[in-house]
């Protein structure tokens, strides 16, 4: 083992992590970024459609963007936070452009936009349909430019507390050697992404395993609104791969087996570009009522023409051909709603600070909250860039004011013993993969697009049973070098912990709001539930409290598209 020391440690190297790292370095802090995969493998890659911003210099209004975000959130987003995000968006886009992102241009050579769901105006900046990848690789270019310290393929197993219960570092396994290291820090920023693999199927990559949520929860930070799980309206059957909303932004239709554009019924004004929760529910209704095709509805791009598909939607064109054997210019593509995004996360303020000293979070693992009950498409990239930077700034500033880190090197023995136990235990027929799959299926049945008490209770019951089974789990791979079997087991532990917070938050919210739609409570109930669900770890399990939603100028109204 080795002991390292930095001012700021950033866990995760997606867009939020890299933006936070760059910000903290710029503020003069000694920063290290720890990531369980190489930075360019991070799941921010998979964001396809674009990033929202109201550029006021060209007649757009950030206020309008903020209002549409509030409405999209079904009034659960904190309006002060949403104002911050939307107000700073324009400058952030220009900054990204200056870094080198090859944003799409209009005829005059200026930044061009496309329209995205839940918004009246075209304010989504994009790079074809690989916006996340194009941004991620450019941020990594900047990381290389400033020669930032990166601990690549290190998996964080726990956060380290000092005697005052402040987070002062992390313990991590170096995959290449299997060695456990202690990295002391005055501030730790979690940027570990979402919870996708808690569900099966999911659009998310196999690395998206709720690590940060579980790490923070374990040291007393709270997770908020975890029941708000977004199902994306257009995912592939089978492996659940994402088909970008940009397809509909460019004009694609959703049709049922009779060829009807069914969104006419559910969202006559916004049609296919209503909020994602609305579109997913509409699709699921069509499927449930027998107007689907093999458990799917159809995404029809044929009228857009081959040229547009090949230039502006080249990646999904490739995906459709590779994974569904469909040529988008010639055939409609079967799609269905699928797990995609976690609106909830580690509760933070607009500077990424959690109530636990020394602990920060940004990006999908955090809940500021700007997405509330439902995130608008192309607001997630914006979230990572704005709040990644803010968390980096705040952590660097706080680190300056923080004295010497007082953590004993022996704290590492807790993780070492736990891992040794896992490694020494003889594997049974139970495996991390089996447990993960059973959890994923239970969640996808019980806590999905349409929910009810009995279904959610079943999911919770399954998750708790699986947690029991997990305690007896052993790993097959006893090696030191690149032991992915061990890492997967640890990830499954993180996911089970997080799954429980999703279930209990969902069961307790006896109303329908945003992505949380209950057939037994089909209406929004502002009187009782215009509030955030806050789950904290208590001595004998999770404890639910509530915190108020910040309303600045947009009073809750009936939401229609």
């Amino acid at each position, binding site marked *: 083992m080795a002991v390292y020391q930095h001012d700021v440690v950033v866990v995760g190297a997606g867009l939020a992590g890299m933006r936070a790292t760059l910000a903290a370095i710029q503020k003069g802090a000694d920063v290290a970024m720890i990531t369980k*995969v190489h930075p*360019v*493998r991070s*799941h921010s*890659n*998979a964001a396809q459609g674009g990033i929202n911003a109201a550029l006021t*210099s060209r007649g757009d209004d950030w206020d309008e963007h903020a209002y549409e975000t509030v409405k999209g959130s079904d009034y659960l987003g904190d309006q002060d936070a949403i104002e911050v995000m939307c107000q700073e968006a324009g400058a952030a*886009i*220009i900054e990204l*452009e*200056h870094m*080198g992102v*090859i*944003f*799409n*241009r209009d*005829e*005059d*050579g*200026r*930044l*061009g936009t496309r329209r995205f769901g839940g918004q009246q105006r075209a304010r989504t900046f994009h*790079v*074809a349909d*690989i916006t996340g*990848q*194009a941004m991620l*690789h*450019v941020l990594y270019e*900047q990381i*290389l430019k400033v020669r930032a310290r990166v601990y*690549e393929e290190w998996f964080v197993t726990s956060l380290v507390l000092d005697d005052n219960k402040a987070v002062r570092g992390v313990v991590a396994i170096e995959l*290449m050697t299997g060695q456990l290291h202690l990295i002391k820090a005055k501030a730790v920023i979690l940027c570990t992404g979402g919870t996708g693999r808690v569900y099966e199927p999911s659009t998310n*990559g*196999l*690395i998206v395993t709720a690590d940060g949520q579980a790490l923070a929860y374990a040291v007393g930070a709270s997770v908020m609104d975890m029941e708000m799980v977004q199902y994306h309206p257009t995912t592939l059957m*089978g*492996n659940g*791969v*994402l088909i970008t909303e940009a397809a509909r932004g460019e004009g694609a239709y959703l049709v049922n087996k009779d060829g009807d554009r069914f969104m006419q019924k559910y969202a006559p004004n916004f049609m296919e570009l209503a909020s994602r929760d609305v579109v997913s529910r509409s699709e699921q209704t069509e499927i449930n009522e027998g107007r689907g095709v093999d458990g799917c509805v159809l995404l029809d791009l044929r009228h857009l023409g081959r040229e547009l598909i090949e*230039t502006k939607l080249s*990646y999904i064109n*490739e*995906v459709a051909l*590779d*994974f569904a054997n469909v040529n988008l210019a010639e055939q409609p593509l079967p799609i269905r709603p699928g797990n995609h995004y976690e609106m909830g996360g580690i509760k933070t303020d607009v500077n990424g600070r959690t109530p636990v000293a020394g602990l920060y979070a940004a990006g999908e693992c955090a809940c500021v909250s700007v997405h509330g009950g439902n995130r608008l498409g192309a607001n997630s990239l914006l979230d990572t860039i704005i709040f990644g930077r803010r968390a980096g700034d705040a952590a660097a500033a706080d680190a300056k004011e923080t004295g010497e880190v007082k953590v004993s090197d022996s704290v590492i023995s807790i993780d070492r013993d736990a891992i040794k136990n896992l490694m020494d235990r003889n*594997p049974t027929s139970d*495996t991390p*993969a*089996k447990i993960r799959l059973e959890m994923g299926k239970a969640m996808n049945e019980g806590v999905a697009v349409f929910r009810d008490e009995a279904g959610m209770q079943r999911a919770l019951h399954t998750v708790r049973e699986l947690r029991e089974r997990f305690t007896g789990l052993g790993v*097959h*791979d*006893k*090696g*030191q*070098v*690149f*032991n*992915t*079997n061990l890492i997967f087991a640890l990830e499954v532990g993180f996911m089970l912990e997080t799954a429980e917070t999703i279930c209990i938050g969902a069961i307790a919210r006896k109303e329908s709001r945003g992505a949380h739609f209950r057939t037994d409570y089909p209406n929004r109930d502002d009187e009782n539930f215009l509030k955030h669900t806050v789950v904290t770890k208590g001595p004998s399990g999770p404890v639910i409290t509530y915190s108020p939603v910040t309303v600045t100028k947009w009073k809750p109204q009936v939401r229609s598209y």
Partner: protein
Amino acid sequence: MRVTLDIGRFNPDAPNAKPYRQEFILEVEEYYTVLDSLIYVREYEDPTLAVRCSCRASICGSCAMRVNGHASLGCKTKLISVMDKDGRVRVDPVGNMPRVKDLVWDMKPFWDKIRAVDPFLQPEGPEPEEEYIASPESMLHLVGVMGCIMCGACVSDCTVLEVDENFLGPAALAKAYRFTGDPRDGKTKERLKELNEYSGIWDCTRCMECVQACPKGVAPMERIMALRDKTIAAGIRNTNGARHAEAVSDFVKKSGKLDELRLVPRTYGMFNPMSLNSLFAAIPVGLRALRRGKLPPIIPHKVEGKENLQAVRRIFDKVEGKK
């Protein structure tokens, strides 16, 4: 569908660790990719199998590997398209890079080379208050090369790297192209000068392996060729590669045919003191060729027929006019 996966394995933790092969016979769905089947092995047959993977949708670049000897992304390769008639598929780690465990390889040499091309935008002059103005075509053109996901498939199958590990290689050179092709970058000439050096753009042998291996259509070799054009256009010609290209072009333009005999001194540079060694080194080759009757003619051949020569020149006019 039954498939036999023949996996090249390596466990560095084992005493006297040596690579070995292991077969897994699986019953899988027809739509399975190579990666799906490896994940299946890892989850249900042998959890010790090491393979990097995440997105399953050819965007994260984790799962480059050799399938039946050629590099590709495991997640983009359908089993059914690579199985032989007995249902066998051979899977190995990428080539040209050190092995860590099973299909996991050491990424350090790969990234060292990316770092070597200063892979970040270096604009010149004061930053504009708003965005840089750039034509839509210029940005769209870069999408093709920005589509690179740094998976390493091209580097795996690069035949130059097999014999010369110093070659920057297709991925780094494609990355370099992304900046020389970016109208916002202010260091194009410096970059080209750098790439013109030993182990740079002129070391590619145009074998096309990288174009074939690339799962994202980046076509690294074509980017390398474009870099050569840019280098010559920028007046950076003091290399064997540039002189060779220019000489070939001159000969063909003049006579419609290649003058192989004079190509040698033209390539090394007639008045270049550094070239003497190379020229002397070429003499034995010439003598051997003479002995076997393969020495190119002293008086260069010409294309027969005036109209044929004109046709050749028309091609030149067209190509050069286009530039």
